[in-house]
């Protein structure tokens, strides 16, 4: 195979691709649009599903304990709960007696009769009942809000009680600390470190998440590239441009290799737009939360992702080549490419959910027979700080893609391309 000849084919493919705005559009815009869209959808879904909470104050009283001289009103708790829940986006309805139809509420908080009495007592515990609908996921978040409000309320109350007791026992106000009574032992500080043991910066804490999103992004990169190969081989036959090319001094291998490389370059471009859109997305989030955008950029990770994307696509198109060249039409060739893509999608999606470096060897090693496993490990190992293993998997990915390219290209003869019926 003559590299010059392959280069000529790549040049023509890229020129043709440059004029093919539709394909370019799909390859670049698909990830740009879909990434933030996924984020927005998740955001919208969670806010568009308001949780209905009923706070039932059956106590509805204020009580002062005569011995301790501490006052509690159930209204205070209702006020605290309402503020916290509304801040979390819930719809809160306050009642003093049980509403007739409980089923319209995802969460019901009941403050029983005697609450303020028990809360101020030195012998009783006051209770708050919670009824949560099992099928509503956001209700769980609302419940957590209620629990943390309660614990804050409880904590404040215990401070008041301890202070009163201390004063009653004759201690002067400056001679004791409420905290050392209530919480004599605490944990902290908590140190977050990287897999290699160094203290982790905020960037390193979100890097694993970023890496997973990058792996998910490979899905959007692989499919346009393999569709492009289908079109480049089967489509060129249907458009009657390939026979003239095959009769030139170019060998079939050079023609196919050129097309596969052009497809991988398309994938590379699409993966870069993928990363760029991810960054814009993170930037928008950072803007709205007031976070730090500069932390997101790790050029080495971006570069590694680009190289991985290139060879991941090369693997995909090389696997598809022997099948694609033997089918008759663009449609059946696309079907085959889709099957190969599906395997990729399944793995990349799992790479989004699972930390591959942590999988048991008995499962991970067989998985390594699938080239995409190495694509995932290149990125995840790098993020885990295992640069050596990351490079090892990259080497395997490169070797496997070149081998498959060789096999795929050798399996094709001009006759098979021209005469497939």
């Amino acid at each position, binding site marked *: 195979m003559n590299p010059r000849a392959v280069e000529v084919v790549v040049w*023509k493919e890229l020129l043709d691709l440059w004029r093919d705005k539709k394909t370019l559009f799909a390859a670049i815009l698909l990830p740009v649009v879909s990434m933030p869209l996924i984020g927005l959808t998740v955001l919208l879904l969670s806010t568009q599903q308001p949780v209905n909470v009923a706070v039932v104050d059956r106590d509805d009283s204020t009580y002062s304990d005569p011995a301790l001289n501490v006052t509690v009103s159930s209204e205070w708790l209702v006020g605290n709960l309402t503020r916290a829940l509304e801040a979390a986006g819930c719809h809160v309805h306050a009642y003093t007696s049980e509403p007739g139809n409980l089923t319209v509420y995802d969460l019901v908080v009941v403050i029983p009769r005697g609450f303020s009495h028990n809360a101020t007592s030195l012998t009783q515990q006051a209770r708050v009942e919670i009824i949560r609908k099992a099928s509503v996921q956001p209700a769980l978040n609302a419940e957590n809000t209620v629990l943390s409000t309660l614990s804050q309320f409880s904590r404040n109350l215990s401070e008041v009680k301890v202070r009163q007791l201390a004063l009653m026992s004759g201690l002067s106000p400056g001679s004791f600390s409420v905290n050392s009574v209530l919480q004599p032992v605490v944990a902290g500080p908590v140190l977050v470190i990287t897999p290699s043991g160094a203290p982790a910066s905020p960037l390193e804490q979100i890097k694993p998440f970023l890496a997973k999103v990058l792996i998910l992004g490979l899905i959007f990169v692989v499919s346009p590239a393999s569709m492009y190969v289908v079109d480049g081989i089967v489509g060129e036959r249907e458009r009657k441009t390939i026979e003239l090319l095959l009769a030139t*001094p170019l060998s079939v291998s050079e023609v196919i290799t050129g097309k596969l490389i052009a497809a991988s370059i398309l994938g590379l471009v699409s993966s870069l737009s993928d990363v760029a859109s991810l960054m814009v997305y993170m930037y928008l989030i950072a803007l709205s939360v007031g976070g730090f955008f500069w932390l997101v950029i790790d050029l080495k990770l971006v570069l590694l992702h680009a190289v991985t994307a290139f060879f991941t696509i090369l693997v995909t198109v090389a696997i598809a080549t022997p099948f694609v060249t033997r089918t008759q039409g663009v449609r059946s060739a696309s079907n085959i490419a889709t099957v190969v893509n599906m395997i990729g999608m399944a793995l990349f999606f799992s790479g989004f959910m699972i930390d591959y470096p942590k999988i048991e060897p008995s499962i991970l090693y067989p998985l390594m027979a699938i080239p995409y496993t190495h694509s995932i490990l290149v990125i995840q190992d790098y993020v885990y700080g295992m640069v050596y293993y990351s490079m090892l998997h990259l080497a395997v990915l490169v070797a496997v893609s070149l081998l498959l390219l060789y096999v795929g290209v050798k399996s094709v003869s001009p*006759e098979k391309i021209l005469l497939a019926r």
Partner: protein
Amino acid sequence: MAVAVRVEHLRKAFGRVVAVEDVTLEVYEGEVFGLIGPNGAGKTTTLRMIAGLVKPDSGRVAVMGLDPFKEPGEVKRVLGYLPEEADVYTRLTGLEHLKFYASIYGGDVDETVRYGAAVSGLGGDLYKKAGEYSKGMKRRLLLSLVLMRRPKIAILDEPTSGLDVYSSIKVRDLIKAFARENRSTIILSSHNMLEVEYVCDRVAFINKGRVVEVGSPSDLKSRYGASNLEEVFVKATGG
């Protein structure tokens, strides 16, 4: 006379369809050789086998003494091939086509492009996207892509198919001039007996995958006592 292309007992079947039954031919260096026959006679399949694109089931092909399946690189260097159904890249201009193919051929790319542009006769239209070309313009562009590097042997499968009278005449003259100028061997196929009589030094009639007659047009006409090649063909195929 030296033999440029020798074909011996070629046979090719697609499943149960026998496309080429038994074809034996000799084409001499520097001549324009015509392959004539009805639809489905096996012309395209024969030409594809000579060009090394389709492997024969049996028989032998020798191009300048070389086997296109054992030494494809050598054969492709001397041979140019225009497929029967060829089309252009719609998004590339004529000039970009010329540059692409000239780069494939190597050597002096600029000179090859200049010659190709002259052969195509497309002038300023070379700067237009080939998708906007008429059928005749496309065919001339494709023909120039094959002839631009002055191949020793050019195989042209129905070079004038789908062209109107004027375009056909232009292409025919182009082929004739090219052969004379470069002393190249040309093998072309056609349905058009008039065209073949005008352009070819010798012709072979092919029917149902077999060669039924070979000779120069004048020789064949006198042998069959016919006034034109069409009559010869009808008589030779026993129609």
